């Protein structure tokens, strides 16, 4: 293959490296779960780790975002999260309505330059 051909394939190779770095954890998880019974306390323990990690990630994304949300104020994000949560519970735990309300409130507040 020509040099240009290899160059076009290079990003796919890098993506494959990232895919492998992700799948090893899933494969390791399957292998380890084979040795654990479904009612084992080890499972509760690992579950606690998974839930704590995800809650930490979600709260960090709202309070200390690293991406484009950095352009918004903390008050804006907290207000959007609060209004979205309120809508979720008012509309009988409707996920779609809760999420959409939060996103719309954030977009509206973000386009208001004084906030």
């Amino acid at each position, binding site marked *: 293959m020509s040099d240009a051909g290899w160059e076009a394939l290079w990003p796919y190779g890098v993506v494959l490296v990232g895919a492998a*770095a*992700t799948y090893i954890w*899933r494969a*390791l998880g399957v292998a380890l779960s084979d040795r654990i019974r479904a009612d084992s306390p080890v499972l509760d323990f*690992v579950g606690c780790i*998974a839930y*704590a990690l995800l809650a930490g990630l979600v709260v*960090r994304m*709202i309070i200390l975002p690293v991406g484009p949300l950095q352009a918004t104020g903390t008050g804006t994000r907290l207000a959007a999260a609060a209004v979205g949560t309120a809508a979720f519970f008012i509309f009988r735990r409707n996920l779609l309505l809760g999420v959409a309300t939060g996103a719309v409130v954030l*977009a509206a507040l973000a386009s208001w330059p004084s906030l």
Partner: protein
Amino acid sequence: MKPIHSDPKLSAQSYPVDYGSPRRAALAGVREACGAPALVLGASYLGFGSLVRESGLSLGVGLFSTISTWALPGQVALVELYALGASVVAIFIAVALTNARMMPMTITLMPLLRVPGRPRWWNYLVAHLIAVTGWAVAMIRCPDMPPAQRMPFFVGFAGTILGAALAGTVAGFLASGVVPPAVSLGLVFVNPMYFMLLFLGDLRHRGRVLALVCGAIAGPLLHLVTPTWGLLLTGVIGGVLAFAIDRQLRRRHV
């Protein structure tokens, strides 16, 4: 956990949700995904699609990333590092760290999904579909179903949201730069909002609730201490703390 091998009549009665057959369970998974989950995944991957284009990569690379990695934070880290010219070793380590949460998630979900007698390679295949949305929904919904219906439900659900993510990647790539900034901020906010509400909607297990609270407090604090290791430390410290408190309360029969 409910017993798997009991009197068929009894076990038929003991599951609150029964779709009748594995095929119908798979269709129920597809139906459950069409709605908030598919829209959330589509919205999340819009951002990824536009990042791919802004980083000078092709749409093909973006789609290959979504289907082969299927874990957004690691995909974003990879594209950003690639654009910065980082080495392959550095990329491997960064993605592995970002996506290490797949292991505790797989360990807790697989015992729910696997069907005795199925070949083991099947579990390894299905594990590729495990990512945070499908995991969180399956952890809540699958225990209510007969064991034979859980894996079909999960595959139907996860396959559908993977399709939505691919569509989002394409749309984001094509729409890059066209959408007003406030709208794209709203789309980025969809992700944390969805997971927060998903967890708030299911607070049945004390251990999990404790873990959510501990993680919510530890997450931002440890991120300030060490952005690289903060997330993993949050999982371990918050998880150990929540497990210990839950066991203490159980010992006192609370």
